[in-house]
């Protein structure tokens, strides 16, 4: 078994949105929508404010509520690496999965089905990194298999402080941010 995920180094990320734009062209994301996005959190008083920049997308949760709430099975775990995907032909557009995602990672594609980050499964299957990872000019994003202790992502988690987003929401997200 593999468990795919990302490790993103917030120390290096500059919030340039290249990952967002690359996703849009790679995946023909309709204009006006985004499968990934940049959040900037600034805390504290000038000049000592701390700023964290996060490149966010679907966390491909291991306990994904979007999968459990889906009435048709359109939302499912892919055989490879537990990637959470939506089967367009099974989706009725009920939006239960949208309501169930604590990250707001999903949206309704203008064609009616629900869409979100696929971890670029079409690239991953060919041994490539996801588009956002491979474009990032600061090389701050890493994609790989957490079940493999020797993978780059596993090693990064072992060696650096990190956090995930809203772990208390109980979804077991698979994207980690190095701090």
């Amino acid at each position, binding site marked *: 078994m593999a468990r795919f995920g990302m490790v993103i180094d917030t120390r290096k990320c500059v919030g340039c*949105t290249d990952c*967002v734009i690359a996703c849009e062209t790679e995946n023909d994301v309709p204009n*006006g*929508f*985004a499968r990934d*996005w*940049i*959040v*900037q*959190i*600034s*805390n*504290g*008083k000038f000049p000592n*404010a701390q700023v964290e920049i996060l490149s*966010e997308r679907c966390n491909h949760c291991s306990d994904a*509520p979007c999968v*459990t*709430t*889906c*009435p*048709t*099975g*359109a939302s499912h775990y892919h055989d490879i690496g537990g990637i959470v995907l939506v089967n367009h*032909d*099974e*989706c*009725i*557009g*009920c*939006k*239960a999965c*949208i*309501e*169930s*995602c*604590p990250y*707001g990672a*999903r*949206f*309704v594609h203008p064609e*009616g*089905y*629900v869409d979100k980050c696929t971890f670029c499964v079409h690239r991953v299957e060919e041994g490539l990194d996801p588009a956002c990872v491979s474009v990032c000019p600061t090389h701050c994003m890493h994609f790989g298999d957490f079940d493999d202790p020797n993978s780059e992502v596993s090693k990064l988690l072992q060696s650096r402080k990190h956090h995930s987003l*809203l772990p*208390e*929401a*109980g979804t077991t997200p698979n994207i980690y941010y190095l701090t």
Partner: protein
Amino acid sequence: MLEITTTRHNHLIDPILHAWNWEIPVYLFLGGLVAGMMIISGYFLFKERVKEDNCSCFYLPMISFVLLSLGMSALFLDLEHKLFVWRLYTTFQITSPMSWGAWILILVYPALIANILIRPPKFIANKIPKLAEVSQKLIEHKWAVKNIGVVNMLLGGMVGMYTGILLSSLGARPLWSTSVLWLLFLISGLSGAAAFVHLIAKNVYERELLAKSDNAFLIIELFVIAMMIIGLVTSSKSHMAAAHLLLNGPFASVFWIFVIALGIVIPLYIQLLAVNHKIKHTPIAPIMVIIGGLILRFVIVAAGQHSHWF
């Protein structure tokens, strides 16, 4: 100062989640109302009130049938990929309340129809003379009528709870993820249905009975709301913030004025006076209860989407 900015501005998601619009609260409201009516009608069947010629159990199932279909239409309107709706019935997803709901509805319609068959409305019976035979047979079998009553009560209860569970299973929305939402929606459905029957019942006994039970439901509803809010404010930061959306946040005025005051407390007061024969029964109170129930669904759906983890 904490500043948070995002580049995301997806339709229906940002700045505040609003993927579910009017269709869902309308569906939840009608579903709740139908659930209540099924319980009431089923209870009357069980209590063998079919003997009374003007028992409301003769027309409630037909009204339920219509309202439920309206609710289902609202739900259908909400679907973004309508042509694929049949996908609901090629699978059963055991973890998905919506899948349960879809299948329960498959059972609800036969139960309603069975109830209708006990005494089909004239405009149908006239067209299909055979129906009269069927209904005659049914009435003759007491146990059949009783069982139809039980089944209607059971399914009504399930539908009523289901409308709440649908929301409370969505753990991403702190306001919804409380363990009493099913109870709130069930009780609110019952009180709405009781108010409705009170409003239209031809039988004086039934009217009086339902006015009394409505008062009981309203009192329980107030209690459940209180429990729900206490549960939220004593839970995580996110849940606390969710409660504050209702208590003193953007939804507070609608919640306090339309749901609590006009939807529960004032009609309750009026009806208490009425059942104690201090004043005459008035249609105003049940109408307020019904509208209050509708607004409750709107407030809970909207505020729930407003609530989020942080």
